[in-house]
């Protein structure tokens, strides 16, 4: 048996990220007393370095390494860049929040970086084992982040719930993986697809595997009926952590959904497509109706996020490269809108006041007209009203699902969009039409945060006027 040294080049960003994060973990214990924000700045620098590494070595070719367990292609690079950009933003928004809430710790950032590493591995996974490895790196880091606020019972409850249900989901997924391996005798995605294509697979075992895998993924994504943890975790977690959970991990979750269903199991499309239809329909309904009665903005956004997952799945239901591309566009735009929405809540939080109830935004137009306008941008974008970018996200997935022949699903989706418009409008309503409860001026503690959040929110409008670029990101890398 001869041993060939694998090529490390495709994985350099991950290797650099791992090395620097490990170093930072050690350094943090030493310098955190002396230099207060050193870990924060180091985190941002590491992200910039990793982003630059990906950007400079960007390739449209598909390269696999480590015996076919790791893949680098345009899809992976674009998603990783998006994860880096979003993480830069969310760490920026989190810092002041953590200080205000008095639990600023270096571990938040190092755990965050490990979680980013996990997402990278998920995005580049090319066999079942790598995928599982990445998923666990990401999830374990996030469980800890949710529990970081030890004195806060809601956060601890959320962490426990997240952990237990997350473990259950992982169990489902692993069970599915083992059956898949049993049925095909392969772990690598392309080999698996080839075996299934050749028709040498016991279909019953394969179907069961698909069911378990889809359930596991649905748990991770928070699709109905596996969504119970989402509102509690979003609500209970400190806002900075909610910001984290609600954005970048969605991209990674979409990536494994794509890798598993579209790359490994295209031959089982008849098995997973109906499952996705059910999940999508239920998610759309819950995401449209339940937020109407929510008074906590984090909970509202959590439920509305479930609806967005329903939309995202529409693209996958189309089950062709264009459909996957539209789902990718949706994911990127949704993660970015999540950054804007949760980012705004995060930067507005004060010591002892979370600013996460819908009522907190009452009279925002009088207290801070500029930030009210930014929130208006975010809400209308999420509602899918042009000219904001959220509109195009919905248009591309609905277009693909119409092309795939599911016109009824498209009609259902637009009806759910109309219903959801109501609760987004409600937020705008309290900001613009209601009298403020207290006249205290609302402003982020630090001036630069206003600029940063405005940049993100205005981008929703600018990309909405010139959406070509965002749409091309998805379509050029997948179809």
């Amino acid at each position, binding site marked *: 048996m001869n041993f060939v040294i694998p090529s490390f080049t495709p994985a350099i960003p991950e290797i650099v990220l791992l090395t620097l994060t490990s170093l930072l973990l050690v350094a943090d214990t030493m310098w955190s007393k002396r230099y207060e924000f050193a870990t924060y700045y180091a985190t941002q620098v590491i992200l910039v370095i990793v982003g630059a590494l990906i950007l400079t070595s960007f390739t449209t070719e598909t390269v696999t390494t480590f015996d076919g367990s790791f893949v680098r292609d345009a899809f992976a690079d674009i998603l990783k860049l998006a994860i880096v950009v979003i993480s830069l933003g969310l760490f920026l928004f989190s810092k002041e929040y953590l200080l205000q809430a008095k639990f600023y710790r270096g571990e938040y950032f190092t755990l965050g970086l490990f979680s980013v590493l996990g997402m990278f591995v998920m995005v580049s996974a090319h066999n079942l084992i790598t995928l599982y490895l990445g998923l666990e790196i990401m999830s374990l880091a996030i469980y800890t982040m949710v529990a970081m606020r030890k004195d806060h019972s809601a956060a601890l409850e959320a962490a426990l719930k997240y952990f237990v249900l997350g473990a259950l989901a992982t169990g489902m997924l692993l069970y599915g993986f083992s059956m898949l391996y049993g049925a095909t005798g392969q772990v690598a995605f392309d080999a698996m697809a080839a075996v299934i294509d050749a028709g040498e697979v016991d279909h019953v075992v394969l179907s069961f595997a698909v069911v378990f895998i889809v359930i596991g993924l649905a748990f991770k994504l928070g699709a109905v009926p596996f969504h119970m943890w989402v509102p509690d975790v979003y609500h209970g977690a400190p806002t900075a952590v909610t910001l984290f959970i609600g954005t970048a991990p969605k991209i990674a979750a979409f990536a494994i959904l794509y890798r598993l269903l579209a790359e490994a199991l295209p031959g089982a499309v008849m098995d997973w497509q109906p499952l996705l239809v059910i999940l999508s329909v239920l998610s759309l309904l819950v995401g449209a109706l339940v937020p109407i009665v929510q008074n906590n903005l984090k909970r509202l956004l959590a439920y509305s996020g479930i609806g967005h997952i329903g939309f995202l799945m529409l693209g996958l239901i189309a089950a062709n490269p264009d459909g996957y591309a539209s789902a990718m566009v949706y994911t990127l735009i949704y993660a970015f809108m999540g950054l804007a929405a949760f980012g705004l809540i995060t930067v507005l939080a004060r010591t002892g006041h979370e600013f996460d109830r819908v009522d907190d935004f009452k009279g925002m137009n009088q207290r801070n007209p500029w930030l009210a306008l930014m929130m208006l941008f975010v809400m209308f974008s999420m509602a899918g009203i042009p000219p904001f970018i959220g509109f195009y996200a919905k248009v591309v997935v609905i277009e693909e699902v119409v092309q795939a022949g599911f016109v009824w699903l498209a009609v259902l989706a637009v009806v759910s969009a109309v219903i959801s418009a109501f609760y987004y409008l409600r937020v705008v*309503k309290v900001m613009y039409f209601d009298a403020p409860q207290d006249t205290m001026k609302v402003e982020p503690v630090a001036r630069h945060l206003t600029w940063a959040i405005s940049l993100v929110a205005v981008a929703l409008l600018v990309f909405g006027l010139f959406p070509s670029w965002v*749409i091309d990101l998805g379509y050029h890398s997948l179809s």
Partner: protein
Amino acid sequence: MVFGLPILSTLIWLPILAGLLILFAGRERPTFAKWFALLVSVVTFLISLPLWVQFDASTAAMQFVEKTPWIDQFNIHYHLGVDGLSMPLVLLTTFTQVLVIASAWDVIKERVEQYMGAFMVMQGMMIGVFTALDSILFYVFWEALLIPMFIIIGKWGGKDRVYATLKFFLYTFFGSVFMLVGFLYMYFQSGSFGILDFHLLPLGELAQILIFLAFLIAFAVKIPMVPVHTWLPDAHVQAPTAGSVVLAAIMLKMGGYGFVRFSLPITPDASMMLDWLVIILSLIAIFYIGLVAMVQKDMKKLVAYSSISHMGFVTLGMFLVYGIVANTGEAQGAALGMQGAMVQMVSHGFISGAMFLMIGVLYDRMHTREISAYGGVVNTMPWFGFFAVLFAMANAGLPGTSGFVGEFMVILASFKANVWYGVVAAATLVIGAAYTLWMVKRVFFGPVANEQVGKLADLNKREFAIMGILAFAVVLLGVYPAPLIEVMDVSVANLLIQATTSKL
């Protein structure tokens, strides 16, 4: 081209950019906000005049066309152009805008810059709706409009403004999403989002019916037609005066415009099969809503219902085509109804705008719109009384005013299609006269009702100018409508050919 810039893009983007500038720079500077908004509105109106002057009325082709790729992946273009159907509506928009800005001059005290900014942005988008030749571009403008209007009604409106504005938004949004699905389906069939490509796209019977119904929901909500009209009285009553004017004078026209730009040419066979549906709904609107208007106690509500009734003539005129062709065998005979509908749209823009401005004048002084709170206003406000009677006559369709021309043409055409349509429509002229004149009688004539009315001051110069300009427009169009009809003549003929050529 004006100053080397394409004219339609200038008309869209100049107000939008000016609106944004007012929004950001006008804070704490209400005077600047007002003057700048007025200046830009006047400039926009002047820029729009070459559309009329340089318009070539001998062709139905699109003019002043601009086309650049916008979203390559889906073959979506930034494609603008006007023909005889849309050009008058663009001018109506730029014209109304000047009056709208002027009408709010002393009235709006709170957040003037947001108010003016919202109206300016909205103007650009409305022109975008009338000039877009790509369905996605059209949809973007169509939907984006809701955002400023939502804020305007909700922020500067009356007591129940929040309910009214949410209802307005959700109704309209609900209507339009089905249109979007229709667009996406047609893109899937034709590979293009171009409206002119849709006109040429062959569609099967079922597809046409479904698309027709999707369009019908979208446009019926906007016009509005019975039974989806209920948002309009609420929105009108709660909206500030200028908001009501824009709603009635321009936004309602978008529904009518939608029928001639989308429904009739894209789904001619379905339009023919289902024309009875639209005609019945129109007749109900004309007749029944006219009766509803009669019993209103609130002036604004009365005019709102009267708007629905008058817009019924528009939809009636448009869908008479098939009945007339069936009776007389030629498409050109139907031109009368279609032209009547188009003239009625423009005329209603002037008249309803004037009516709402009139109520605004009274409301600014008395802070009530109850008819019973007034009486004998003409004694204290003679000039105002003069204009009020003129506009009321126009609303009732008196010959010599613009209200007569459109309705008369539609009624003539409806006799050609089916005598009973004509009878019902003509009978409504009586009802229209009844509710309008009865309101005028109760508000303006008789003895001075109370002390407050006794202290009313007549129109100031600004109000006089606004009323005077509108009165001029109403009479001019009533006495000499020929130029307007000539401009749209060829386009209407072309539309009739499209609407009567089967796609099956």
